[in-house]
């Protein structure tokens, strides 16, 4: 089917996927050159998912994310400059250096947080959905989860609760086929998509390497949620090209043939070929975006390098909103 997405949106999609990709490549490059990042998990390969979903979101919508959250945040509009500064642990970061890669948040954008305790952010999204219903709004909350979360307790509780509360939540399961080193077919009994059906909510399984497929499925789900139709579930089959975390050697648990197979389905070149073939965008459009992103990457690293670390006495700030009556030792 031909694309029915307008030019601005197509440009946004390309820009977003490329931004995520380049942000992460830069992260890896910096890490390898000795920048002392803490832990972090790369999204490279999965860009189509967050991008296709966020294409339907507005500032006042919410997202809840897991440990592999750079892409979710960037697609929701988080400033890459502040995000990289956060990864550096700088006071100029999204979280003033207190969160790091695994806890990026942005209250102005409804980013409830990258959250590395598997599955727990699903419940936050249900709560955001309940708050939206309470104020009779038409915002939505997107809950990103990995395939491993399907086996977690909080998965069952959260989808059940979202359903009975008719909360406007879209559960987006990024099935990248591994949980650390554990293949999904070992860890998850039955089919992921059947788990959603069991709650009686709409569920769809899509090719998560194809941004158009994601765009379409997410569009329906978001529209349904905004219109009061309640939660739905999307399983996006995808793949991470790098190790589980920044120091993981993935050759220890999977073949390079398998990795290559998914590299051939890389969503970014696939997007490029398709929009060029259908003449929706020109090479000039895309190259312009690439160049713009490169400039941004330089600026981002410069900013992070130049930024200050938090001062030692900040250690005791922001435990509570205000100092408490009796004081603390």
């Amino acid at each position: 089917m031909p694309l029915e997405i307008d030019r601005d949106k197509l440009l946004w999609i390309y820009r977003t996927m490329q931004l995520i990709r380049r942000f992460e490549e830069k992260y890896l490059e910096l890490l390898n050159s000795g920048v002392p990042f803490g832990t972090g998990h790369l999204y490279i390969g999965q860009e189509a998912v967050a991008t296709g979903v966020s294409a339907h979101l507005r500032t006042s919508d919410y997202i809840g994310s897991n440990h592999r959250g750079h892409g979710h945040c960037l697609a929701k509009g988080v400033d890459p400059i502040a995000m990289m500064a956060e990864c550096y642990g700088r006071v100029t970061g999204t979280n003033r250096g207190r969160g790091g890669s695994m806890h990026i948040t942005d209250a102005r954008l409804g980013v409830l947080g990258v959250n590395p305790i598997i599955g727990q952010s699903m419940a936050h999204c249900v709560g955001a959905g309940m708050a939206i219903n309470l104020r009779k709004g038409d915002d939505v909350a997107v809950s990103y989860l990995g395939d491993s979360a399907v086996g977690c307790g909080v998965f069952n509780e959260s989808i059940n609760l979202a359903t009975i509360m008719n909360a406007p939540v879209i559960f987006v399961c990024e099935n990248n086929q591994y949980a650390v080193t554990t293949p999904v077919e070992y860890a998850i009994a039955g089919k992921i998509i059947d788990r959603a059906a069991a709650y009686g909510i709409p569920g769809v399984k899509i090719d998560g390497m194809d941004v158009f497929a994601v765009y379409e499925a997410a569009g329906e789900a978001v529209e349904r949620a905004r219109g009061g139709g309640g939660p739905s579930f999307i399983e996006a089959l995808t793949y991470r090209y790098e190790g589980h975390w920044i120091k993981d050697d993935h050759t220890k648990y999977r073949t390079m043939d398998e990795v290559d197979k998914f590299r051939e389905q890389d969503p970014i070149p696939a997007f490029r070929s398709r929009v060029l073939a259908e003449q929706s965008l020109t090479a000039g459009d895309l190259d312009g975006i690439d160049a713009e992103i490169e400039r941004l990457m330089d600026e981002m690293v410069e900013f992070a390098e130049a930024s200050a670390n938090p001062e030692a006495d900040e250690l005791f700030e922001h435990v509570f909103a205000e100092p408490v009556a009796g004081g603390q030792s």
Partner: protein
Amino acid sequence: MSERLLSYGEAIDEAIRQEMARDPSVFMMGEDIVGAAGRPEFWENLGGAYGGNRGLIVDFGPERVIDMPVSEMAFSGAGVGAAMAGARPIVDIMFIDLIGCCYDQLINQAPKIRYMTGGGYDCPVVFKTSYGGRAIPGLPKGGGAGVHHSQTMYSVVAHFPGLKVLTPSTPYNAKGLMTAAIRDNDPVMFLTHRFLGSVRGHVPEEPYTVPIGKADIAREGEDLTMVSIGGALPLCFEAADTLAADGLEAEIVDLQTINPIDEQTVYESVEKTHRLLVVDEDTPVASIGRDVAARVAQNRFGYLDAPVTSLHSADVPVPYSAALEEHMPPTAEKIVAAVNEMLVAF
């Protein structure tokens, strides 16, 4: 001030009702907090499986008084998420023994949000639950509620920076602390004692707050400081009366907030009395009671005329048989005995 009497339970209900009327972003959720979910014809009579909340749903509707499925993890997490999204949820967890089912949200999520976001998010959620044993000494022997319905265990939530933990002990401070908790921009755990529900006391009708993080001098005295935690207050009063008959005047400091603790008030009392006994119904190991004792021993050592002492429930799981359970918690007699030992010991 009028001598209006309410029970501890009613005082808390009144605070919730007044705050719900005042602020449309306040809502309440929990298992069976109304009962007969989805069956409005029953709501008139109902108010929670175990009492409380009567009529709340009739006044505020099922959008703001929401019965939950048995999913503590999801709905305590939903409380956190709703709080981050601008609402002020009160999350009712039936009893403290259940926190093992949602502990991550209580200790890893809610308390850390403000800190790890560098102040980016408020998290104004109230977790309300109950604690404490049920065997009343002197009752006919038989069964208590068993180990999973009788624990105190608040020390394991008080451990974590970022969570305010309250243990109201009277109808007056219960209402004021609940009002303060709902208005607070940080996560607050509001802990009621299972036994205090029907205790009556003076409660003003108009809304008021009791400050979080402030201890209360419940009784003045010169000879000894008793730090009382939550449900220990009536025991401390009883013991103080007995001691007074022997000419020993105990000052009772009701902690009210068990994290962060009002050290200053405790220290000032000890500076005056030179002796400290902490009474804490929780089991002793890594408890809030021993914490208070340790702070005093470290920071007011020079003032002490006797060993700091803390009195707890016996260090065992709660047995069902009342014949056993009645020996477990602190009692007025044990308090008096501990004071006497403390005075002899030095």
